């Protein structure tokens, strides 16, 4: 993938100019390209290999105060003319909106180290080898590990080029790679799955043996799992489970959700909603972060924002639109998946800040309760009301020790109640993609089985 952006810069500049010539008051063109490699192995053979490349451009225009958007993968001259026509026609059908503004040029942080050239230099065979080692490590951990559901290597390399009618023109490239594994352990007719993931910006940081062993041991530890009777219990959540819950809370920090009356935190800025151990950070410049970038989806420099500081709601996330509407400054949180979408409001690298305790010490401190390692159906929880009722699995905590595995249970409550009940955070901050959390200790939750 080239680091030279000549052709793409011409395309985005030209689109902005064409739109203005055709009567747009303002315009923004966003080009993105992604190259993907995926390798899936099973039983020490390559089962699936994927190699892909896609690119396209999205155009946002303002006709007076009416916004319009269109995208295309057709980068020919005719394709781009058609793109401008569609975006303008779409604007004509939209409502007037006084808060539509585009940012101006800015100075961006350099040396973010987003692109590891060794990803390109490493031959595909070496990446296949990595996936094979991952599977081998998991399958050989214990004779009860019987099946590989997934053992894979993935890699994504991308480039972004952005221009707007305020004279902004900027570009960057980045990449990340990752391993994921799901194994099935079996004993006496009981089948249990265990998973693990690892995503990094540097190829050399991947640890296939560690990921393989973690997934396999999670499967083995669940063997013999049984439901339990309904109770109120103190719960320790492992980082993956904590990330799932954090994911339900995060949309409430979006200024867009606040302004449209679908944020639980709308009236809670400056108010205490959690204990002093709870701090939530969104950091677009995090070293090694998967979502780190010099600028956000509309060209505003990325930065570090504290969303929740020692239990107090400190800030909401803004893009240019929500900032204009609130009369504030954008926080650099314009989120954009690809050329196919308009910039919304979203996180960069968002995490629950770790505390000082070893996870084992948290568990010992609980005495009796539940240790959760899996949730099922988290996406069915309601981010607007904050109510959740999810399937879960994990282990019992008895006398400060992990004992029998449990599954088929549900954990229910409200995300604000969850937030307020976090008593302590472990020191094991773990990221799943660009969201992170440590092991956490949550006071009492309703559990049924």
């Amino acid at each position, binding site marked *: 993938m080239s680091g030279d952006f000549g052709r793409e810069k011409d395309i985005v500049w030209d689109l902005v100019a064409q739109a203005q010539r055709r009567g747009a008051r303002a315009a923004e063109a966003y080009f993105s390209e992604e190259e993907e490699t995926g390798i899936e192995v099973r039983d020490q*053979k390559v*089962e*699936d*290999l*994927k*190699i*892909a490349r*896609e*690119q396209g451009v999205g155009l946002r225009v303002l006709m007076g105060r009416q*916004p*319009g*958007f*269109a*995208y*295309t*993968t057709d*980068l020919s001259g005719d394709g781009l003319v*058609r793109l401008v026509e569609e975006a303008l026609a*779409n*604007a004509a*059908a*939209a*409502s007037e909106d006084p808060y539509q503004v585009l940012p101006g040029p800015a100075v961006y942080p350099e040396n973010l180290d987003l692109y590891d050239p060794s990803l390109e230099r490493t031959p595909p065979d070496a990446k296949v080898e990595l996936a094979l080692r991952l599977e081998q490590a998991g399958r050989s951990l214990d004779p009860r590990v*019987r*099946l590989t*559901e*997934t053992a894979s290597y993935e890699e994504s390399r991308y480039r972004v080029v952005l221009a707007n009618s305020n004279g902004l023109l900027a570009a960057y490239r980045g990449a990340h790679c990752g391993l*994921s594994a*799901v194994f*099935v352990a079996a004993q006496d007719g009981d*089948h249990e*799955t265990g*998973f693990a993931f690892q995503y990094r910006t540097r190829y050399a940081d991947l640890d296939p043996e560690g990921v393989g062993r973690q997934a396999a041991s999670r499967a083995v530890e669940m063997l013999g799992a049984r439901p339990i009777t*309904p*109770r*109120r219990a103190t719960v320790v959540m492992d980082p993956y489970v904590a990330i799932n819950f954090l994911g339900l809370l995060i949309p409430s920090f979006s200024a867009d959700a606040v302004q*449209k*009356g*679908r944020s639980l935190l709308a009236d809670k800025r400056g108010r205490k909603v959690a204990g002093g151990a709870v701090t939530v950070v969104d950091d677009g410049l995090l070293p090694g972060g998967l979502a780190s970038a010099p600028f956000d989806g509309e060209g505003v420099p990325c930065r570090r924002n504290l969303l929740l500081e020692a239990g107090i709601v400190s800030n909401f996330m803004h893009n240019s639109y929500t900032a204009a509407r609130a009369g504030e400054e954008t926080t650099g949180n314009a989120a954009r998946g690809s050329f196919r979408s*308009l910039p919304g409001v979203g996180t960069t690298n968002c995490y629950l800040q770790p505390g000082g305790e070893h996870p084992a010490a948290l568990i010992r401190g609980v005495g009796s309760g539940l240790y959760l390692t899996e949730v*099922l*159906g988290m*996406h*069915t929880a*309601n981010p*607007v*009301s904050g*109510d959740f*009722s*999810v*399937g879960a699995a994990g282990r019992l905590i008895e006398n400060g020790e992990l004992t029998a595995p449990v*599954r*088929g249970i*549900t*954990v*229910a*409550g409200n995300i604000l109640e969850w937030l307020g009940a976090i008593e302590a955070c472990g020191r094991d901050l773990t990221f799943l993609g660009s969201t992170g959390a440590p092991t956490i200790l949550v006071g009492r939750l*309703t*559990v*049924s089985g």
Partner: protein
Amino acid sequence: MAQGADFAEVFVEERHSTAVVCEDDRIEKVTTGREVGIGLRVLVGESTAYGYANELSPEALLGLARTVAEAAKLRGGGSAVVNLRRTPVPYELTVLRPPAEAAVSDRVALVQRANATARREDPRIKQVMVNYADTLQRVWIANSEGDYVEDERVRVRLAVHAVAVAGGLLQTGYEAVGGFSGLELFERQPPEEVARTAARRSLLMLEARPAPTGRMPVVMAAEAGGTMVHEACGHGLEADLVQKGLSVYAGRLGQPVASPLVTVVDDATLEGRFGSYRFDDEGTPGQKTVLIEKGVLCGYMYDRLTARREGRPSTGNGRRESYQYRPLPRMRNTYIAPGEHDPEEIIRRTQRGLLVKKMGGGQVNTTNGDFVFEVAEGYLIEQGRVTAPVRGATLTGNGPEVLRQVDMVGGDLGFSIGVCGKNGQGVPVSDAQPTLRIPSLVVGGTAGAGEAEAATGGPRDSLSGLCRSGGGR
């Protein structure tokens, strides 16, 4: 091919999509997209190589072909002669008013009708979000077996999300309609009706009490939709999971896996349904496949790859989200066939329990069959009568166990639509069921555990195999 590949396939796709979003009483987004892409697949033994690109220059395509061939451990440069023959269209699916021929303003008008209706419903409705989307997808599929298919799929979808607020409580209501259809869908299911249902659901949830917790009888109304059948057995009957030993239903053909009252069908041929199609994404004609007949497991859902492994024909379940993905066995329109009980009688004969009037999303671990789904609208049943609405309930169970328990099946049938996720790919599906009773299911609610025991008087994103589906808010 000349170099020893077992199967090669080209999938070319052109997609035009239009989306309209209304929120805050404003038409906030009107967007259109045009996309062309090509996916190339080569099978050698048990290995698949897949490549895609959306830059369609001859150089780019040759480069792609070479890379995919190399990935499949072939030497590039070979050629093979394949006589393509066009596969006849197996049946028609009618589209009367293609959205592509309508003006953007026509779609905007549908959205405005929904928005205005929901807002008028009650002053406690504080926010309304309306999402409209249509797609025109043209596909050209050719493979080394000589099959050639050209097809066109037209889908429309309208979803309304209402937020109701009272006394510091924030509740939401959601309703969506969609189909393999043109804009005529909205003559049968007007935007006003969708909006009213969503708005009323959010208001109802304001008055609902926290759901009970614990085991209890559950009646699922036909209008509740089919999330349960989708999760409890649908995914477990997809042949890739079965062949890898990742399904509780593996190796159980011919065996009873459900109550004799339960017949499960997956059908691509239904007129107007969201999961319908004429050809699947490998060019196999769509069909109706009976999966469970009177409780006995009689078939799985196959794509070409999984069918080849067993030396049998594909059931036409090979689907992919777009040219960016290889096909997988996926559901279409999945339903439990209607039975003979009177739906009202099913409720009358239930002393105490939960009535599910609308299901939300769900998820399943196919390996052990454990599933969970959300109750979007639920009521208590007391002494055979429907009483107070409840909120925040989730039902968990184990597929085979729950299906074996079903003891009453109504004569009605209700559909719901969703986007089903598997291996990171979303495809449009619909699910349906008649009114059903399950004598004992775990309800996870937010009411205190002690309270629940008194009330009942007794008793993974992109994890493969873990499905995500449902309304998609």
